[in-house]
């Protein structure tokens, strides 16, 4: 525990230009401020957002680091979510939270796989998802993931047709407790095994995996995966 914060706070420095009219509060005080803000918000806050609310000259990033150390091993922790920070209960205490548990809709296998594919391959087009899963992606699956705010539209691909791509969101990182998309489990292994490469099928590939996808007659019905996905 780092409870003796009062001594550790270095004297606030004023910029060389002397542009600060007021001294920034001591770091211990800044840490309290960051603590209050992160506690108050249910959504992650960026250091920028916090700093904007703090007195001039404060360094939210440094204060967050102090706070993170302070809460290490406690009942609630300071966690990184993309570019932002949040306080979340320690996962080992979930058994206490039955009342707080939000009943999430059970996701279909199609939705789960689609989400994983987007996360690992992002930015990822619909054709790529279909190529990997070997079946067409129903509109409902994408809609559901969008609704959960786990995916959003990324940039269009610079390939013919300029297809839209999907990427995962900060809410996705928050939900799955990831600091960044780089922390996806086993990402490195997948990459090393070449499983994240987009490898075009050799020659003309007549199977249903063909990513031209416009051959409607043979395409499985759109809703197929939802019929059987639980």
């Amino acid at each position, binding site marked *: 525990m780092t409870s003796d914060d009062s001594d550790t706070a270095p004297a606030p420095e004023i910029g060389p230009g002397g542009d600060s009219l007021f001294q920034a509060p001591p770091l211990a005080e800044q840490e309290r401020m960051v603590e209050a803000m992160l506690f108050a918000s249910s959504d992650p806050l960026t250091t920028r957002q916090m700093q904007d609310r703090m007195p001039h000259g404060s360094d939210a990033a440094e204060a967050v680091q102090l706070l993170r150390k302070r809460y290490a091993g406690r009942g609630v922790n300071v966690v990184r979510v993309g570019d932002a920070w949040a306080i979340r209960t320690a996962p080992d205490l979930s058994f206490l939270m039955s009342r707080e548990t939000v009943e999430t809709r059970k996701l279909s296998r199609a939705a789960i796989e689609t*989400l994983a594919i987007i996360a690992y391959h992002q930015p990822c087009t619909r054709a790529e998802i279909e190529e990997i899963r070997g079946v067409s992606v129903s509109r409902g699956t994408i809609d559901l993931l969008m609704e959960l705010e786990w995916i959003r539209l990324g940039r269009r691909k610079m390939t013919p047709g300029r297809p839209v791509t999907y990427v995962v969101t900060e809410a996705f990182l928050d939900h799955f407790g990831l600091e960044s998309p780089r922390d996806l489990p086993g990402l490195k292994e997948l990459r090393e*095994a070449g*499983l994240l490469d987009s490898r075009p099928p*050799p020659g003309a590939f007549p199977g249903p995996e063909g990513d031209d996808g416009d051959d409607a007659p043979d395409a499985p019905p759109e809703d197929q995966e939802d019929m059987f996905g639980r």
Partner: protein
Amino acid sequence: MAETIDTTEPDQWESVAERRAAEALIVDVDGFEGPLDLLLTLSRTQKVDLRKVSVLMLAEQYLDFVEKARSLRIELAADYLVMAAWLAFLKSRLLLPPDPEEDGPSGEELAAHLAFQLERLEAMRARAAQLMARDRLGRDRFARGLPETVETARTVRYTASLLDLMQGYARIRTRDEFRPFVMDRDAVLTMEEALDRMRAMLGYSGDWVDIATFIPEDWRRDPKRRRSAAASTFAASLELVKAGRVTLRQEDTFAPIKLKARGADDQR
């Protein structure tokens, strides 16, 4: 569906376990997410690393499966049949010596790609499962139950400098220099007034008259007032033309604009 399974010939299957597995496959055929999913499941029966899977064997298993399904009159979706056709083609390519005449990818290349696809799908499934097993927000980790909303208080700070103040004062005390533009209503003849006046006078003018004659007597001397009256009289004339009451004519640039009332017979 249970009865149909009973009609399978048991000797086709080598062991009870395999038969069970096969039955499960057939009963669940609709549960597969497409041919690739089915192929992945079939490849598991080979009990080898997916990278070492025998695509030839897999193709045979798949074709077997499709054959069984057909004999059981289970309707397979079209893409299963497309895959069957493709695997039959792949099988022939793998078995026959390569034809030098034929271009396109070799059987090995096609097989390698299929193996890659299976491995990739398997990997994504494993990762998806790992992802879903993480400590999830709202299930294992929780956000603040009583969030406080950040209120936005907008404060407006007014600024004014001493210079503004002095200039402001100077402006008032020397009003004529700085007086903002004000419409001097005394010197304005509105179009409505001009229109009223012209309407009343139209009956008396038989022939072409200069519209300037409609300007009231007391608006002619002061140039400011005359300008306003001329403008509104002109606008009113246009209004009357629009209403079909008069015709306007101007013989030359800057020549007087002349107006003539249209009689009842002139009007359409």
